[in-house]
């Protein structure tokens, strides 16, 4: 009697678990098949920098609101190294299913050209989804240097050629390149002192180890706000709302030298147009949120959105431009 009952119980149990298993398989398969139109799983935003750097902070600011709109968890993955190449290469090899995104910065259009065989093709290996921010550079000097405008700085540099030192977060960084382009345009000669990061390069000006730095906004903001450092010009085409008293390069008298450090979300190449539109739409909504704008602004970035096509054009244009610049400056190894 007891055995019969046990047998029946076991049969029922096994039937139920088989059904459950089958249902689970069906669910998984179904979800995967729907992946082409919807994002079928957790989304990873790859950031090619250490935690705490500007792109990382921005990706984390976006991850919460984005995950609400995707209905999927959004995770930030740090893949620092090789000047951003490691992260960029990881994304270029990922599947174009919308689950791997890249928080790209303009550096990705510079670094591949610095080696004889580029590690990746900035324009060809990616699908542009949209720009998210613009992070201009600001020329900072120590107040003890005694100059208050860009013109005075150039005059000082001309009076003592080869004596002023400038810092940068590394050879081939946008800051370095922009400084060299400025030197060429104005005919001055300064000495480059590379550092390992924007923070170290900013500290160098603070400690008077170097005289000036074409700083990215994020490490410079605290120093500018406390007046420990003086901002002479911003490299964008309009003034930054964070430091409204600092003129643009054009206003300071130097035109055609604008350089915008853009931050954008890209995906691997081959993403479907529907997927791109979906992600771009969610991105646009998130970037319009007031608290996101404030958080970006506090980190030194101005929210600046663009449509996928416009971003693709910008990406291709910058890739071409900086290829020429890198070769011109002899930075190819």
């Amino acid at each position: 009697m007891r055995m019969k009952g046990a047998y029946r119980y076991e049969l029922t149990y096994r039937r139920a678990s088989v059904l459950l298993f089958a249902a689970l398989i069906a669910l998984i398969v179904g979800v995967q098949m729907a992946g082409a139109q919807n994002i079928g799983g957790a989304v990873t935003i790859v950031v090619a920098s250490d935690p705490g750097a500007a792109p990382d902070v921005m990706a984390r600011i976006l991850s919460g609101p984005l995950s609400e709109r995707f209905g999927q968890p959004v995770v930030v993955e740090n893949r620092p190294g090789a000047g951003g190449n490691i992260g960029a290469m990881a994304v270029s090899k990922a599947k174009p299913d919308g689950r791997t995104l890249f928080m790209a910065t303009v550096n990705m259009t510079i670094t591949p050209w610095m080696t004889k065989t580029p590690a990746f093709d900035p324009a060809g290996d990616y699908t542009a989804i949209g720009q998210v921010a613009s992070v201009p550079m600001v020329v900072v000097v120590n107040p003890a240097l005694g100059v208050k405008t860009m013109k005075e700085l150039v005059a000082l540099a001309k009076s003592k050629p080869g004596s002023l030192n400038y810092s940068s977060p590394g050879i081939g960084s946008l800051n370095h390149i922009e400084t060299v382009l400025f030197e060429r345009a104005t005919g001055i000669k300064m000495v480059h002192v590379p550092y390992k990061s924007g923070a170290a390069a900013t500290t160098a000006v603070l400690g008077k180890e170097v005289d000036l730095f074409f700083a990215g906004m994020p490490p410079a903001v605290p120093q500018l706000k406390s007046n420990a450092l003086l901002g002479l010009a911003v490299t964008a085409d309009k003034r930054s709302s964070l430091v409204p008293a600092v003129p643009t390069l054009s206003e300071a008298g130097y035109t055609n030298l604008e350089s915008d450090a853009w931050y954008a979300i890209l995906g691997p190449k081959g993403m479907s147009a529907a997927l791109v539109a979906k992600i771009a739409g969610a991105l646009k909504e998130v970037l319009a949120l007031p608290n996101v704008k404030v958080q970006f602004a506090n980190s030194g970035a101005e929210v600046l959105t663009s449509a996928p096509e416009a971003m693709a054009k910008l990406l291709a244009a910058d890739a071409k431009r900086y290829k020429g610049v890198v070769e011109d400056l002899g930075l190819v190894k």
Partner: protein
Amino acid sequence: MNLPENLATGFYAAFSLINLLYCFLGALLGTLVGVLPGIGPTMTIALLLPVTFTLPPLSALIMLAGIFYGAQYGGSTTSILINLPGETSSVVTALDGYQLARKGRAGAALATAAISSFVAGTIATLIIALLAPPLATLALKFQAPEYFSLMVLGLLVSVSLSSGSVVKAMGATLFGVLIGIIGTDVTSGVERFTLGVTDLYDGINFVPIAIGMFGLAEIIRNLGQGEDSSRSIQSGKLSGLALSGRDLKQIVGPTLRGTGLGSILGLLPGGGVVLASFSAYAVEKRISKDPSRFGQGALEGVAAPESANNAAAQTSFIPMLTLGIPSNAVMAMMMGALLIHGITPGPRIMTEQPILFWGLVVSMWVGNLMLLVLNLPLVGLWAKVAQVPYKVLFPVIVAISCVGSYAIGLKMIDVFMLAVFGVVGFVLAGLDCELAPMLFGVVVGPMLEENMRRALILSRGDPTTFVERPISAVLLAIAFIAIVVAAVPKMRKKRAEVFSD
């Protein structure tokens, strides 16, 4: 400056129920994360950063700070118990801590680590409260020539980290420097020794090197001895967990000296907890009456580095808060968190945001207290790990090490390096070469070169810059004296006498 009033403001803010809760949470998380090798406060804080956007700024800072210095407490636990540094700053603790565990004195070692960390934390908090602004300006005076001279002094002092042949120690240090050089040079952008491997562009990560050379090498050695692997690491009985009066007297001096050294080194951007712990150990060994005890299980060898790394962790807040200069990745993230909340770190933070500043300072002390209370009772439990049969323990250690190494950057190369340096560590130890000077070389070598070249660029090739500047000259003079003292025949004979027993 009205200290009692400021401290009162701080106490009021830090002792609110919600801030106490976040402090505890941070400290607990930090300890857990510190225990796990490879996974550290940097990663944890990065993961929790979005959560802190919604918290009030003081609570966010309190929690993140708790994670950071909590990790310094936790890192020493695995260092002592299984020779596996949980944090890079606990590498040196393993030297004596593990030997103490093998002798059945794991409890004493763990208790020493906890107590010296707490004392260091308390004193460092006081230092921050009293001296934050002047200390910050001191930090700015350290530029390339000073860093270079400090590194020279450090490297020379590291030779005294080993008890054996001076030549071997120098050789090990040099080997470490060569390993450290692998990667891209900052000053010229040239890749060196990377063999074309992109993943080596930034060099070999320190964590797999340390875990491999200490933890894995020890496992290889233990297994290779062919002993019965159902025995445990610990030979002999587990002696008392409490510290005797004599023990306490032994660790007072090292703790205080370690705190002093750690507080200063934590201030320097790029200095930090690793440098502090190594230096404190070396200094302690140098001035000890019986240096041969170090490396065999001397409590001072645990007290000094542990107090140094905790003090350094706390004073590294000073440049970030008062100048807006982050000394390490963790500080960079905290600064990011502050900025997002609209608070600008800088000289005026003490006057513009007194509640934030003093609340944070007081809560650092509260966190240290919580950690002491948390860790001391657990010492007995942790010490039992040393009694686990080895055949169960070592696969777990290997697995955790691999996961921890992979978790750094999600790259397999770090795991490969773990394996490679496990073998390297085994071979070197077999050749009677000390590992600590090598690791010190890995950390200090590249910094030495970077700063030397930077100093020479800035002086346009004039080498007298190193002796013209006062701080640099003093550091070099101390280094010179250190060599002379070691080389003078009378001293040399005494040294041989000491090492022959």
